[in-house]
Every structure is written in C-alpha cells, then in structure tokens.
C-alpha cells in the first residue's frame, strides 16, 4: 500500500485570521493518494474541501489564510515547506489543476494555443514549433475537433463544455502526476458533464494519473472516484473505498448526505386530476432577443434582423393545483419561458392566458395590479434580495405596495410570513448577507408568497443550494404548495429534483417543447431522443444503479 503512495497529507490545519476573528477552515485532514487512484472529496460549501487542496499548492491567499500545521509529502519533499519558486515548479508541472468555472479560468484576451504553449514552456524548455504541435496534440486528445484550426480561437468562441476541455488539456499538457479537479462539471449541463467526466476518466486511465476530484455531488463522485473522503466543517468525517462509503456509511453526516439525494419519486400521489380546470394556458408563444447593434443601428434602422435565440411556438397548459416541471439544459429557453409568463421580457407574439385573461394584452397599470396573482422565486438567493433591505423591508414592500397591509398591521403579517417559511422572527432586522443560502431562499419564498399568489414560477430555486439544504427547501415548497393550494411551474435542469416534486413534466430543447407527460411516464418511457439523452446523463449512486463501476 505505502509503496506507490504519491501524495501523503498528514494532519493538515489551515486557518483564516480576519478582523472578525479566526476560523479553522481545515482541521486535521489526512489522506493518501496512490498513482492511478481517483480520490473524491465530497462536502457541502464551506466544508473546507477546496481550501485543503488549494493549500497544498500554496494557492490559499496568505494572509488571511495560514497553514497552521501538517505536512504534505510529494516526490520526496514537503509541499507545505516549499517556497514560491519551488511551488511554481510543482504547479502545472507535477500537479495540474482544473477549476470550476471555465468561463473565468481562461484568459479571454489570449488565443487558446498561446495559453497552452505558455504553460508548457513554463516548465519544459522547447522551441515554439514543438510546443505548438504538442499543444495541438493535447487539444486533440481532449476531443476538440479540428484542433489545428480551433487552437487559434479565443476562449469566448468555445462553448462551456469545450472550454472545460481546453482547461483539461492545459492541466495535462505538462504531463503531471496528479490532477486536482475542483468541481469541474458544476457549471456545466448534465449531458456535457457526462462527457467531461468520461474524458477525465479516460485521461486518468491512459496516463495512470492520480486524480483528486472535489465535488458537492455524490452522484458525480460515485461515478468517477475509487476512494471517497467526506468533509464537514473542515474535518474528515469519513473516508474509504467507494463501495464501503456508499453502501455502509458509518458517520451520521454521510448518511444524511446520502439520504438527501433524491432517488425516489414524489412522496405523495398527485393531488390533481386531469379534469381540474385549466389554470394557465399558453398559446403559440414566441419570445426573441435582439442582439445589441450599437447606437446608430438601433436609432435609425429598426428593421435589421438581429435577433438570436428565444422560444418558438410554445403551447402549454397548466391545471389548477398542479406542479409542472419544466426541464432543459442551459440555452433551452426554459428560463425565457418563465420570464415570458411573468412578463419580465417582451413577448414577440402569442397568448399567456391566466384564468382566461391574456397577460400580454394588459396595459402597464393593469399589469402592475395583476402581478400579485403570479409571483416568481429566483435561482440565486444571493442576487434576488436587495442587499440594502432588511427582511422586514423586503417582505413589507409588496404588502404595502398592494395595500395588503397598512403600517399598523404590516409587522404582524411579516411575522406570519416568516413563520410560514420557518424563519426565526428574531431575524426580522437582519440584512441578506447575514443569512446562509438556504435561509435567503426562505426569505425569497416568503416574499413571493406575501401577495397570496395563485401561480408560482420557481426558476431553479434549489440549484444554488447544498444538497442537505436543498432537501429542506424542497420539502418546504411541497408543504406550502399544499397549504396555500398553489399552482407551480418548476423550472430546473436537475431531473432528480423534478421527479421528486412534480406531477407532470415538460422537456424543452432549443426553444421548443420536445416532450410532455406525467412524471413517471417520462422517466420510465421517454419518447423523444433528447429526453433519453438527458436521463442517461444523470449520475447515479451505486445503490440506485448497480452497473456504474467500470
């Protein structure tokens, strides 16, 4: 066992010292990594999983960060004792890194080929020509078609998945022994995620690479890792071979994490019948976005055909009391459809009939009054709350605007809303930044419910949340839907969430609806090719699907 140990981390402790006190981000973390092994580090945000790995390469900013103690032996030296020059020799050369967001981890002003050559020649002296051919070979290896030509493109000319491939090529080009991948698929669509995971796996096998794969997604970890390390609040709570951790989890936290993974269908039968009255009907809805064309074009030439993607000819019916799931990948138009119903974007043509009334035809003032009947819960609870408004202000605003309360009764109503979503009343004077993501989403839900709407459009309300928090928020949504008899359009890219929550599913691709049906029917007998691809790409836990290991 110890013969082929490549990296041995012992008793690593990293602390952050700020004006507001010190915090131990990584507390006594030890693990070993052997050649050819894939170690999955799993944990929720703030668990210290990234900090632990970044500190090995000196990538934790010091101050405020400080490595308190520990050792990390790699190739006969202690990484934690190396100076900056020594670390530079390791980074990219012996240990490669892939980051989460492929949009920001490449330099937007440099051709892809130049970035590859730069990182190659940093570590291995060679002439430009050799470097160039090596770089192109590296791009070919990660599956970039037409690599010789595409190498001269800039990062923005690649899609998210392609950019992540370029990142991987860059991390692997100097032929490192270890690859650290920090949530490399989190920003990607599920079908693209499957491709990237396969690519990393392939490179790992062919190069006998050791990989540290940091992720919050147990399904992804199960798919790629041999060894699993579970972190919580800076500590390792459990580690072991994949099968052991997933099938016989020892620690309560691991069990909780696994329980929060939604593998089953809805916990109660659908409440609605097909005979329920039609609540929302959408007919031939088109929404298009016009490309910005500069001042003079927009002032003087209004007829330039500059529009790009949007949604095309959407027909949809939502029954009263139903939870309808709208799934699709980024760019499929699912959010555009939600915003079109909300009248947040200009609809090109078509009808949105809410209980028979066409929302697109309302005048501006009629629409303001009607808005209280349909409300939205947004994806990012960090961006959807005004940072300068307290909970009270945020919840009182809709109540006062629509005359639901006056100055005397508003406090009582705000308290009731907070009780409804399980927020402690004492937090009423706090600002959004003082809450965690889950609590913020509760505030956002309370705000959407303030006007007692009949229709809620929830745009990816749980995708920014940790898995255990996600389970709580979903349970809350279900409870509130029943209590207030809401009709919900639930937009999500996550099939398992939709399966858990929704009565019926609509699948969108490239601005059009490709499949529609009852949740279980869509999952068990998908009709459209695209739906099948989506379903096949979902990472599964070993217990849910026996044949994952390869």
């Amino acid at each position, binding site marked *: 066992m110890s013969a082929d140990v490549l990296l041995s981390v012992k008793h690593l402790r990293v602390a952050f010292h700020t004006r*507001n006190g010190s915090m131990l981000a990584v507390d006594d973390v030890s693990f070993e990594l052997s050649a050819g092994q894939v170690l999955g580090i799993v944990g929720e945000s703030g668990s210290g999983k990234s900090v632990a790995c970044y500190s090995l390469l000196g990538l934790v900013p010091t101050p405020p960060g400080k490595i308190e103690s520990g050792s990390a032996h790699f190739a006969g030296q202690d990484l934690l004792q190396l100076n900056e020059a020594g670390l530079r020799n390791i980074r990219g050369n012996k240990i490669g890194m892939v980051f989460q967001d492929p949009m920001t981890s490449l330099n937007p002003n440099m051709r892809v080929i130049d970035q590859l050559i730069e990182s190659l020649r940093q570590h291995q002296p060679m002439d430009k020509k050799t470097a160039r051919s090596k770089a192109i070979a590296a791009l070919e290896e990660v599956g970039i078609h037409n690599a010789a030509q595409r190498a001269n493109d800039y990062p923005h000319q690649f899609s998210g998945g392609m950019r992540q491939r370029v990142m991987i090529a860059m991390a692997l080009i100097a032929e490192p022994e270890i690859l650290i991948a920090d949530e490399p698929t989190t920003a990607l669509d599920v079908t693209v995620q499957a491709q990237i995971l396969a690519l990393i796996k392939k490179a790992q096998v062919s190069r006998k690479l050791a990989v540290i794969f940091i992720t919050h997604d147990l399904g992804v970890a199960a798919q790629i890792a041999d060894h699993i390390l579970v972190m919580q609040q800076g500590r390792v709570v459990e580690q072991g071979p994949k099968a052991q951790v997933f099938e016989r989890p020892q620690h309560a936290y691991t069990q909780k994490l696994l329980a929060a993974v939604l593998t089953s269908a809805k916990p109660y039968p659908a409440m609605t019948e097909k005979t329920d009255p039609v609540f929302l009907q959408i007919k031939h809805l088109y929404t298009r976005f016009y490309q910005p064309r500069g*001042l003079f074009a*927009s*002032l003087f030439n209004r007829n330039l055909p500059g529009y790009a993607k949007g949604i095309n000819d959407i027909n949809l019916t939502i029954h009263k009391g139903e939870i309808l799931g709208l799934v699709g990948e980024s760019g499929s138009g699912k959010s555009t459809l939600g*915003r079109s119903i*909300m009248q*947040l974007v200009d609809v090109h043509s078509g009808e949105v009939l809410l209980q028979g009334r066409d929302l697109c035809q309302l005048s501006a003032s009629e*629409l*303001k*009054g*009607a*808005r*209280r009947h*349909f*409300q*939205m819960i*947004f*994806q*990012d609870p960090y*961006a*959807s*709350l*005004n*940072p*300068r*408004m*307290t909970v*009270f*202000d945020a919840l009182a*605003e*809709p109540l006062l*605007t*629509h005359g639901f309360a006056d*100055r005397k009764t508003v*406090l009582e109503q705000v308290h009731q809303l907070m009780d409804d979503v399980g927020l402690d009343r004492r937090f009423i*004077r706090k*600002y959004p*930044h003082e809450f965690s993501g889950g609590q913020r989403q509760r505030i*956002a839900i309370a*705000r959407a419910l303030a*006007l007692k709407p009949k229709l809620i459009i929830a745009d990816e309300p749980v995708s920014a949340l940790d898995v255990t928090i996600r389970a709580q928020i979903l349970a809350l949504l279900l409870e509130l839907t029943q209590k207030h008899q809401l009709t919900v359009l639930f937009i999500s890219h996550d099939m398992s969430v939709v399966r858990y929550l929704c009565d019926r599913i609509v699948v969108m691709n490239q601005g059009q609806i490709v499949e529609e049906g009852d949740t279980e029917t869509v999952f068990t007998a998908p009709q459209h090719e695209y739906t099948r691809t989506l379903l096949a790409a979902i990472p599964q836990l070993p217990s849910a699907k026996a044949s994952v290991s390869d």
Partner: protein
Amino acid sequence: MHELTMMQQEEGSSLGRDAWLRLRKNKAAMLGATILLLLILVALLTPWIAPYSYHQQNLLLGASPPSAEHWLGTDVLGRDQLTRIMYGSRVSLMVGFIATAVALIIGVLWGAVAGFLGGRVDAVMMRIVDVLYALPFTIFIILLTVIFGSSMLLLFLAIGAVEWLTMARIVRGQVLTIKRQEFIEAAVSMGLSRWQIIRRHIIPNVLGPIIVYTTLTIPSVILLESFLSFLGLGIQPPQSSWGSLISAGVDSMEEYPWLLLFPALVLSITLFSLNFLGDGLRDALDPRTSKD
C-alpha cells in the same frame, strides 16, 4: 414593547437608521463631520465674530507675518488674513455645497433614469451628456457673463451645469450593472412602479460611488470658483473666497508664504474632513461592511 418602538421609528427606511448607528461608531468620520460643522458654524457667524472687516486696509502695515493683532498675518494691502479666510469660507462652502448638490441631484436622477430605462431613451440621454461635455467650458462661462452679468446664482448654475455630467455617467454605469440583478426583476414582478424601483432598489445600491465622487467634487468645485471669479463670474474684489485667496497666495508665494499657507491649510482640512466623512458614509450605508 421594544418591537413597537422600533416600528415607530420605522417611518423612513431602516437603512438610514442603521447607517446612522454605524456612522456614529466610526471615529474618523465623526471627527470629519465635527470639523465640517465647526467650519460651517464659523462661516455663518463671521459677520459677528470676525476681528476686522474684510475690506479694511492698512497700507502702512503691508504684508506682515502672523502677529498678536493679526493671527494669520495680513496681505499686501494690509487686510487681516484671518478675516478674509473667514469671509472666504462663506463663499467657498456655499459654492461647494450648493453647486455639488445641484450636480448631485441632476446627475443621479439623469444617470439612474437613463441606465434603468435603457435602449433608445438611454442613448438619447447620454448623447445629450456627450454634447454638453464637448462644449468648451471657458467660452460657455464667458458667454454667460456677457449675457447675464455677474451673479452668485449664475455661478451655481455654471458649475452645476458642468459637474453633473460626470456624475450622470458614473451613476448610469453603476445602474447598468445593478439592474441586471435578480432583485430588480423580483421588484418588477411584485408590481412596483419604475419610480419606486429606482428610488428604493437602485439608488440605495449605487450610493457608494456617488458618495465617494461627491466628496471629490466639493473641493474641486471650491477651486473652480476662483477660476470663474478670475473670468469675472462670481465674487469680485474686495470680497474673498478660498480659491481667490489661494491664487493670490500663489503669486506671492516666495515673498509672503503665509498668504498661501493658511488658505491652503484650511482647504486641505476641509478636504480631509470630507473624505473621512465620505468613507464613513459609504461604509455605513453598506450593511455588508459591518459584522456583529
């Protein structure tokens, strides 16, 4: 009971109340505010507390260094420097605050409306700003003086007309980034009017840069006034302002350094106080900077 009293104070926004509580804890900002208040108080009371009259000359004395009778010395005509600085502060502070306030109100509203409405409205509004920017300032001032003569009101107008342009641009840029945030969409979907959104959601979130730019504008306006006075708009001798005292001081810097030193010192103190107060205000208005 406690909740009730909090509710009664609620009338305005709780952001304002919280900001005041935070500002009070910031020592540098409170020092700056105190100095500014003192300066304003002295300016208001000058006619009653000034040791001499601002035009009282003593040619026998000439330019003399600080002494027991004239604490900050006298200028070449033998006029008391302290008195002239005190009278000057009336003009300079008034110009500084009023002209900046004019620039602030027009600039913030113009920029916020342009940025929030966007599209064609934005394009037209910002092109107006560009055109005004391109106007040669000196010629504009001389024209104003020729047509309307010289008056303080005109001085405010002239300075306000120039300074709001930059403010409008800064605010518009900030609004463009804020308005794409989801909480603005949330406000729209709640049925708030455009004006409510601008007032309650947009302006509070662009206050930081506005305040910083304001604290930079006030001293530059105070200096601009001396240039305008030189062109014949604004105050005329024997009246004084900090700007005119400094430019007079620069001319005789080598022979009589105190004529430059003291007005410049007062202006610097004002500038520092403004910056401390501005920084404090910016931090106080951002709930995220405080952790408790």
